[in-house]
């Protein structure tokens, strides 16, 4: 079951990482699945979540690079590819995706407008501030919050903090 938690937490960041190399959903889906499967098969060797993370990223990255090398042989161009594939700056993007994936878990069932309101609320904005930024009335903001609250209350019982934010303001 811990495996499921790891899958839920890192599926999106790992897939998003792969997507930066290969923009093909189906191809990277296989890479991602395979990386998780390898984690499962080596589960005795992992003691830290950080190590699992690192393994997942390295594994999809290698798969993507292999894939691109194959394509490169076929196409024989893009010499700048190698530069672009350097590891510099990885850390920042990974961290960003990991945090964003956690936020995404909380808001994925909401519409665009509701997401915007929720994110602004998380960021500490008040109803009038949100209303002004979105160019709608305070009442609209309240209605959106209320609707988001209903969706979240039904679907996401474990996220009381979000409900508290929406409702407590």
């Amino acid at each position, binding site marked *: 079951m811990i495996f499921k938690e790891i899958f839920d937490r890192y599926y999106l960041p790992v897939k998003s990482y792969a997507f930066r190399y290969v923009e093909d959903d189906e191809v990277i889906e296989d890479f991602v699945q395979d990386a998780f499967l390898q984690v499962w098969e080596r589960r005795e060797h992992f003691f830290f979540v950080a190590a699992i993370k690192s393994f997942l990223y390295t594994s999809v990255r290698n798969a993507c690079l292999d894939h691109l090398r194959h394509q490169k042989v076929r196409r024989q161009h893009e010499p700048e590819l190698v530069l672009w594939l350097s590891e510099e700056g990885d*850390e920042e993007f990974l961290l960003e995706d990991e945090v964003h994936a956690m*936020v*995404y878990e909380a808001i994925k069932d909401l519409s665009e407008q509701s997401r915007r309101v929720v994110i602004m609320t998380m960021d500490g904005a008040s109803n009038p501030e949100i209303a002004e930024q979105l160019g709608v009335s305070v009442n609209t903001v309240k209605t959106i919050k209320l609707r988001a609250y209903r969706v979240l209350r039904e679907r996401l019982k474990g996220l009381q903090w979000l409900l508290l934010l929406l409702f*407590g303001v």
Partner: protein
Amino acid sequence: MKKIDPKVELLIYRFLRGELSGEEREELDCWLQDGEHRVWFENICNKENILQKSFHFDRLNKGREESWRRLEKSTGLWRRRVMRRWMVAAASLMIPLLVGVLYHDMLWNNDPLMLVKKTEIVPGVSTATLYLPDGKVVDLGKDSVCSLKLASGGTFQNERGTLTYREDSTKKSALRYSELRIPRGGEYKVILPDGTIVWLNAESSLRFPNEFSGKTRKVYARGELYFDVTRNEAQPFEVEVEDDYTIEVLGTEFNVRAYQDSPCATTLVKGSVRVKGKDQEVLLKPGQQAVETGDGKRIEVKDVDVGPCIAWHNGLFYFDQTPLEDIMEELARWYDVQVFFENESVKNECFSLEMKRFDDFNRVLSLIEHTGMVKITVNEHVVTVR
């Protein structure tokens, strides 16, 4: 590839949730000492980035269920799942929750050997977190003594489980709010600038302004709170619980109970209050309770025995023919445990119980068990009733 400590992502996430404890705040600040980290941090917290990423993730998330299903098959987890279907519903509910707790420990300790940790269940203590208008977060405890002066004027004095706020009358500033939040297994007392005293029960919060300058003295409440309001007819006191539930007060004592998933209830001890609903107002007399109907649309007035409603304020648990489910919910909040019912039917068994809030948890459980109607087992912080 450099390893990033998974702690950092959790810290930032909790920062976004506005949930950092003082200690975590320090850890994050420490990480942010690095100028590069600060730039990352700002990008991560950027609203537009989060929003755009969520649309990108909508696309990526499409393959998730299918991927997990295949993984379950190839890892053999699928067979275990089918097996587990035969186990009782409550037990299967417990597993993910327990694992959630374990996994959490594993992340924070980075040490799987620490997974099994003996923990003692203790009653609640005076503990709270204060969120200041400038974004600062302060942890308050029974033994901490501190004094905080706000840039916008006003001073917080914290001593022995009581927080006193004094406004600075010489300095007029924009209306800004502080918030006091009490976790599970906590309680706290706060004295507002007008002399009003508020006791906060576990899992409750109070939002109050840096000064009472408007026509009313308005505060926002969640959870369970006991108010002793200083009389001032020129500037009535107002407690907003939710959009359609506000309490208007002249000077009085009353208890508000407004926990998630249960109807709001105001119980009047002395004086008089007016409770405003959606398009309805009721006036309470002492000994009466204004409670929301199940659908939350209307407010009904009932005559109640005040004792049990405000027992917590007097350091007691007092249940009079109360369903076990409600009793356990209340105990869980105070002793900070998780409760599972393996047998649905005992949820509605009614018990009467009177005890001190600082009693040993096991003694409380044995009292209930002695009735012979239920069996209770405790494993770490998980209590199972069957």
